[in-house]
């Protein structure tokens, strides 16, 4: 009986929506305009030292983002010595590969990076539903057909979660925020062994 109760509890918990699992309640009143400001200034060259851990291997490089115009970004990753590993471009949600090292030219990898990077640069996602708890606001949106939740405290976005069936698949954590620049960004995947850590240079 106890086992059944625990199973039932787990089943309900795992079926609960992402906001519910985190004790957020739907709300119609909110004071936060959904905006991701961290790569939104076209006059800034966003340059980060990047450490990537994938399947227990680690490598590093320089991660560069530039907003060219509205809905237009370039994202380039080079080694510290300057060799370009990839050069991606987003223009009106269309994704283009300008250059990629043949060793990295693998569809699943590119697809993962495309979804991760689009979440980094999409400045004004369309809000679908608002939630709140005592301190924070959570906003549901959809990017490239995936569910995303944006979480802000004191009107400052500090976390984005990509979910599937209520479960966190990827989290983006922003810290050391000043003047709409995050000095650290951590992208953690939970379904694959991949972590990308960005440190502002």
């Amino acid at each position, binding site marked *: 009986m106890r086992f059944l109760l625990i199973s039932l509890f787990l089943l309900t918990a795992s079926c609960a929506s992402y906001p519910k699992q985190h004790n957020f309640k739907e709300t119609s009143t909110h004071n936060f305009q959904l905006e991701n400001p961290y790569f939104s200034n076209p006059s800034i*060259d966003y340059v980060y030292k990047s450490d990537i851990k994938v399947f227990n291997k*680690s490598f*590093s490089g*320089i991660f560069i983002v*530039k907003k060219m115009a509205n809905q237009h970004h*370039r994202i380039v990753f080079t080694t*510290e010595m*300057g060799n370009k590993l990839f050069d991606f471009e987003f223009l009106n949600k269309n994704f283009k590969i300008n250059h990629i090292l043949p060793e990295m030219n693998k569809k699943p990898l590119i697809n993962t990076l495309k979804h991760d990077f689009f979440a980094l640069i999409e400045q004004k996602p369309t809000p679908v539903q608002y939630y709140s708890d005592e301190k924070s606001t959570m906003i549901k949106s959809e990017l490239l057909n995936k569910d995303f939740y944006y979480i802000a405290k004191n009107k400052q976005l500090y976390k984005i979660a990509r979910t599937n069936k209520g479960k966190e698949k990827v989290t983006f954590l922003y810290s050391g925020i000043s003047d709409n620049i995050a000095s650290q960004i951590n992208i953690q995947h939970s379904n694959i062994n991949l972590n990308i850590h960005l440190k502002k*240079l």
Partner: protein
Amino acid sequence: MSTSESIALQEKVKSLAETTNTISANFVQYKHLDFLSNDIESSGKLSFKSPDMVKWAYNKPFQYSVLFKNDMLYINNEGEKNNIDIGSNKLFKQLNKLISSSITGNMFTTEEFNINYYKNEKGSVVYFSPKDEKFAKYIKEFHINFNHNAEVSAVKMIEPSNDYTLIQFSNRITNQNIPDAVFAH
């Protein structure tokens, strides 16, 4: 540059390379991407030991070093160490060889490159474009600047997209003993 001048430069560079056992120098690296407002600048110290041990130790704006030694690449990324065996990777081997030879500038191999010579105020600049198609996909051209003493003062690696990496050397010291610890890993 006339043919006789280019031959004279080649000979000077070659004889200098032959008598060079070690080089240490400071370097400043500029990564130029056309779409950026400013080049990305980093700097550090280069140590070279003949024939092919090279260490690039960046100390600004991050601590990172890469040591090329015996077909291996030893990386120290802010204290985290990582080794890469490049023995099996032909392209990487080729790149490593080029990096070593570009430090002394002794890479006048016409089987591998189309080579053009130019004079400038500070000395001369030689353009090397790789003949190997696979290699040319990564680097369209190397520009190696020599001062009047035929020492390499700057190396520019230009990608097919015309984005480039420029490395400028200063405080170059030749044939001074470099402690083994520099090339330890």
